[in-house]
């Protein structure tokens, strides 16, 4: 049995394997590092960082649904400065690939965040959250407006040489147009997908289950949708896709890779099983061996339609 190559490249970013931990589902790595060995994963993606700290939405912020959950955290984060001062030193230490996710409420804020962070060595790439549906002025508006997404990409591209990954919203009719647009502006990859807009009500109080009224739906419930979006981009646009949405097992990860993902992210499943990433990596390795695939890159977009 020969060794399987699991390493992948996203633009100039080399990852030891294609399994990343999704933004907002690993914090800044500290808490989860007590349960899982972060040096084993392909990369961790930080909680979205904004220029100023955000305290986030009032409770309730989460609600469980059938095979999924709604969240409206409201991009709670400690802000760029405290992130650099308090979290980067820890992230430096743990010897894992760090991708910094950025969320902002204006073009300028995006640019300023990337400018301030681009020289931090620990940060190997940027993932730009244009799609978070929770914060009015930084969420839906950008993510569903192809021109805004294009503009953000073209604004950020000249600022840094580091890989620029645009995280796309699924709440749109044609995600491939967005992928095409950001490709044209020089993005290195897209992540697909962020959460779907959803809600739930308490039928006795007649209030929304989530204080913010709507939240983002994640988890196994959305896997078929995420997979279709990945396939849609993969079939039409020549840009690396990072698949995310409902991945809870190595089989799910393999499914995304076959459907066109060069790498995958695990989100909600970390809450249920923080060790899931290790299991996915091991599972992909055994699967490749069993299927006689010596290089996982050969699996990418290997579907027969």
């Amino acid at each position, binding site marked *: 049995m020969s060794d399987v190559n699991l390493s992948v490249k996203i633009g100039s970013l080399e990852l030891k394997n294609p399994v990343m931990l999704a933004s907002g589902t690993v914090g800044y790595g500290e*808490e989860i590092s007590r349960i899982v060995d972060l040096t084993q994963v392909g990369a961790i993606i930080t909680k979205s960082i904004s220029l100023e700290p955000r305290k986030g939405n009032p409770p309730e912020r989460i609600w469980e649904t059938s095979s999924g959950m709604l969240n409206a955290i409201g991009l709670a984060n400690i802000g760029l400065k405290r992130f650099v001062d308090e979290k980067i030193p820890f992230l430096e230490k743990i010897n894992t690939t760090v991708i910094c996710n950025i969320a902002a409420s204006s073009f300028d804020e995006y640019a300023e965040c990337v400018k301030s962070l681009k020289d931090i060595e620990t940060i190997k790439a940027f993932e730009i959250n244009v799609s978070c549906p929770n914060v009015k002025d930084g969420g839906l508006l950008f993510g569903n407006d192809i021109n805004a997404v294009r503009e953000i990409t073209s604004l950020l591209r000249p600022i840094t040489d580091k890989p620029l990954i645009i995280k796309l919203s699924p709440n749109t009719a044609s995600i491939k147009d967005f992928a095409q647009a950001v490709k044209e502006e020089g993005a290195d990859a897209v992540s697909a997908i962020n959460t779907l807009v959803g809600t739930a009500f308490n039928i006795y109080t007649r209030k929304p289950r989530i204080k913010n009224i709507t939240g983002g739906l994640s988890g196994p419930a959305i896997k078929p949708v995420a997979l279709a979006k990945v396939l849609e981009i993969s079939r039409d646009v020549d840009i690396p896709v990072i698949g995310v949405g409902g991945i809870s097992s190595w089989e799910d990860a393999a499914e995304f890779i076959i459907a066109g993902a060069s790498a995958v992210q695990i989100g909600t499943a970390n*809450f249920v099983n923080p060790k899931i990433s290790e299991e996915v990596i091991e599972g992909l390795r055994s699967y490749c061996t069993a299927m006689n695939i010596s290089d996982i890159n050969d699996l990418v977009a290997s579907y027969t339609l």
Partner: protein
Amino acid sequence: MSVCIDNCEVIENSQVAENIYFLKTVAPNIAREVYPGQFCNILVSDYGTPLLRRPFSVAFREKNIIGFLYDIVGMGTELLSKVDVGEKISIEGPLGNGFNIDGSLEVALLLGGGIGIAPLPFLREKLQKRGINTLTFWGSKTSGKLNLSLFDNIYFATDDGSEGFQGNVVESVGNLWSSISHANLKAYACGPTPMLIAAQNFFQEKNVPLEISVESRMACGFGICQGCPIKSADSDEYKLVCKDGPVFNSKEVVL
């Protein structure tokens, strides 16, 4: 501080009162580390429904065994009640910060409301081992004796007076107040929010320190999702119930 996820064998899972089940599992790694007030996150089904783990306070620890007291309130707890002895369940823990036992403490008042009694037997055992006097008060809607030695020597309060004091648990403490020693006293409370607020008011007035164990919906249970905020009393920020709590000094948070 490390967190374990273990597949733990169930050695007891039985009804011990009308609405209360007692679950005992072999969990050496968690048993070694856990202290009173901490909780564990239990996966109640291997089949993905419900999706998220369910948080339960540790109610009991003996050698490599930990126990939980729980109420059936929804799908998760219903499924948990169906787990047979001999089966294994995935338990993650210990999680959160537990109760603090100050060096000078001499008498501890333990107040449980409904299933909020859950973390108190473990706390009481620890306190008693340290030679601290404990008085345990338990309030519930109506009588329904616990078939469990964990609950010996308890002052009952029932809404309908069918057992013990008639009224709520805080009132039952008030009722005995003159006979409770006042020096180096501390109170610990766990239960529904209205009860915690009543306890806050009562002990604040009496100038007795109070620790409360609060609940919140949780997704992760260990500080990564930010799903469980509770308003901080001294700033405009939120604390996280799972990571900064579930036990708080009652002055720290706004209920």
